[in-house]
Every structure is written in C-alpha cells, then in structure tokens.
C-alpha cells in the first residue's frame, strides 16, 4: 500500500490516478501513524514552500521514522523541495533535512526569454550516475515542470535540468527519492518514473 500524504498543498487527483493506472493501491492516511504500515510514502504538493508547515510535528516525525525503518519515500515537486533543509521561499519553515542544501529561486534571463516560473517540458540530464528511479528513461527524456524554486545540484542529484542555471530535477539517496518535475503529468516518461518507484516499494 502506497501512502499519499495530503497536507493541503494542491491536487492529489492526478497523482492518485497515475499510481492507480500502474496498479498501485493508494491510500491517503488520516493519521500520521498510518505511515508506519505503508510500503512506500509519497509527499506530493504544488505551490508555496510555506504550505509544508502543515507537515511539521507528527507528520514529519512519522515520515522520518518510516524512512529510517527503510520505507521508500518519494517527494514530488514541492514534496521534493521539502526533503531539503529549507527554502528561500519561506525561510521560517524548515524542511525535512534528509537532503543537504537549500532551495533557492530560479533566475530568469530577460534577454534570452528565460522566464520564471519554469513551466513546460524540459530535458533530464541523467549522465551523472545511474539510478533506480530513472532506470529505463531515454537519454535527454523530456518531463513536465512548473516551479519557481529549485534544489541545488549535489552528490544526491541523479538528473540535472538547465533553466538559466542547472538545478537538481531528481535526487536519490538510498530509499529517499525526489523529483522536481511532475511524473503524473509527464506522459510515458513520467509513468516510467512512478513504475520504478513502485518497484522498490
């Protein structure tokens, strides 16, 4: 059973629909204790980093404890940003801190028509190292992004994407995974990423 955390940051319908299409049994828990029974935990989310404040306290402890027990965790978009230490978007809210580094605002370049937010399909550079999460994707696979803030490229980065500057579009360390793009909105490439996550759960 995959636990999809609903903390009020955006729409879970499409994530749930994609997981179901891949044959996963998805549950949205009412209480943090249910995370302990999950075979995998997904933290989705769109919008402002401040929304992750709703995860502070019991949810944060339950998710961290499940991860420590070996349960795979996937953060999507805002959910991936939450895996890091914090974000310039809402400095007063701390992240889960499982990934090193801080979320910063993307830079636009007016002269080159590079705009923020970064909205649309962009390529994944997966050449840094192989990963379980992105296994089977074609080199330079295109996925759908919509965000204004992004994670730094660190050793945990398994895919980088460039929008003015390179940022981490996917991360993986042990049983912790994160994607800045929306796999549920990224057609076949996105479904492959979700399939890979389900395979480790």
């Amino acid at each position, binding site marked *: 059973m995959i636990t999809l955390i609903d903390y009020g940051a*955006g*729409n879970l*319908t*499409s994530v749930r*629909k*994609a997981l179901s*299409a891949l044959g996963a049994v998805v549950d949205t828990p009412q209480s943090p204790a249910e995370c302990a029974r999950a075979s995998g935990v997904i933290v989705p989310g*769109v*919008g*402002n980093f401040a929304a992750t404040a709703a995860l502070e306290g019991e949810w944060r402890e339950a998710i961290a404890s499940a991860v420590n027990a070996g349960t795979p965790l996937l953060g999507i978009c805002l959910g991936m940003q939450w895996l890091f230490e914090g974000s310039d978007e809402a400095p007063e809210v701390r992240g889960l801190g499982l990934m090193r580094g801080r979320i910063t605002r993307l830079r*636009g370049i*007016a002269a080159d*028509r*590079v*705009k*923020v*937010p*970064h*909205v*649309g*399909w*962009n*390529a994944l550079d997966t050449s840094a190292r192989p990963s379980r999460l992105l296994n089977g994707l074609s080199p330079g696979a*295109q996925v*759908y992004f*919509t*965000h*204004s803030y992004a994670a730094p490229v660190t050793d945990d980065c398994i895919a980088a994407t*460039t*929008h003015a500057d390179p940022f981490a579009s996917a991360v993986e360390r042990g049983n912790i995974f994160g994607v800045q793009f*929306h796999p*549920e*909105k*990224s*057609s*076949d490439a*996105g*479904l492959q990423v979700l399939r890979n996550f389900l395979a480790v759960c």
Partner: protein
Amino acid sequence: MLTKRIIACLDVRDGQVVKGVQFQQLRHAGDPGELARRYNVEGIDEVVVLDITATLEKRQALARTINAVAREIFLPLTVGGGIRTEDDAVAAIEAGADKVSLNTAALKDPQLVTTLARRYGSQAVIVAIDARRRDPGFAVYVRSGTADAARDAVEWAREAESRGAGEILLTSMDRDGTRAGFDCEMTAAVADAVDIPVIASGGAGTFDHFADVFTAGHADAALAASIFHYAESSVTDLKRFLRARGVPVRL
C-alpha cells in the same frame, strides 16, 4: 532547454467537443475523452478544456467532462469557461484539473486571481485574454467575446501577472477559427510585457503559423483546436517540422 509547448484545446458544450469560427457557428468534433486519448499518444504537450458557452448560459464547467478527459491523459490539464468563484475553481481542480483559466471573472474580480494563486500556487492560475486589434493597441473582450471590457490586452496582462497569474492565454478574436495564422504582433506585444509564459491562440492553420508564433510572436506555447480535431494534421509531423525550423520541441 525548455521546449515550446503545443496545446490542444477542446471547446466543450454539453459534454461534446465543438469548435466555432470566430466564436460562432459551432459544429461537432467528438467525444472529449476519445480526443484526449488520441492526444496522449500523439505527443500533445498539454490539454485545455474550455466550456465555451458557460459564461453566457451561466453554467459551470462540467465535472463529468473534466473527469472523462483527466482519466485519459497523463498530461497537464487546464479547465476554463464559467469559472467565476473560488468554489468553481475548487470544483474543477478536484475533478482533475491542474490549472484553471479565468477570463471574465478575472476582470470582474481581479482579487480572485490572487486568492486562487495563494491557495493553489500561481502555476495553477491562467488568465485568459480574448482580444482584437484596435488603433492603437489591443482591445480586451469578455463574456465569450461579446462585451468590450474597455481594457488594453498588454496592460491587463501586466496586471494579471502582478496579481498572481502563472500564465496568460491570449486569444486573437480576429483570427480565431480563420486558420489565417496567429496574430504574432499582438502575441509578441503581450509576451514582451510580462515575465510569465504566454500561450498564443486563434488562427492556427498551417505548420508555418506555429513556427511564426514561436519566433516572431515570442510565444511560449501555442494552442490549437481545429487543426487537430479532424485528424488533418499529426502532432508528431508538426513537431518534426518545428524542430527542423530550429524551434525546440518535445519529440
């Protein structure tokens, strides 16, 4: 590199896809779920469902239609038409939409843009602008193109951005349904005035028109309906053409 998006628009009335010429003379184009399914395999980057008569007939966008489309596609889905209140937007998003497109309601109550941007993030809020040329500038129309809003498109796009809109969907009423090409001049005027992406709409007839709006028109995305509905052109062929012309696309 961020690619230019090709967006399919399903103009929906009473659960069926229709497409008008200059906002009138509707004719049937098919079942929305079926069309969405075709787009999913053909390489369309995004789908917009517009309940085109919603504002006039005071109807809400149909959750049933949104559901039928959302079931078929793993692509970004925008719903517009008749979204007048926060509750209308919530209903569309809960039915499976990723973004809502506000038109008449945004002009009438610009605070709604801000409210929705705060609740769902700017990426979930598109402000749709229907405009036609006037001298000077571009006149904004509302209520499905029937009423002059007494605003200029460039100035309104700037305000929409400052109020929290994440994208602008700009439709040329002069070109809508004519297949005479996008209004590149108007698109560039708006795209150059805002930092958020601009989706060009109205007038797509040939592959060259798409290349033009991405180059001369400075558009970030282009929306088309009739060119795809009747299977006259394949999306893949369009994208190959664009790539050969130096326009970055997802293939």
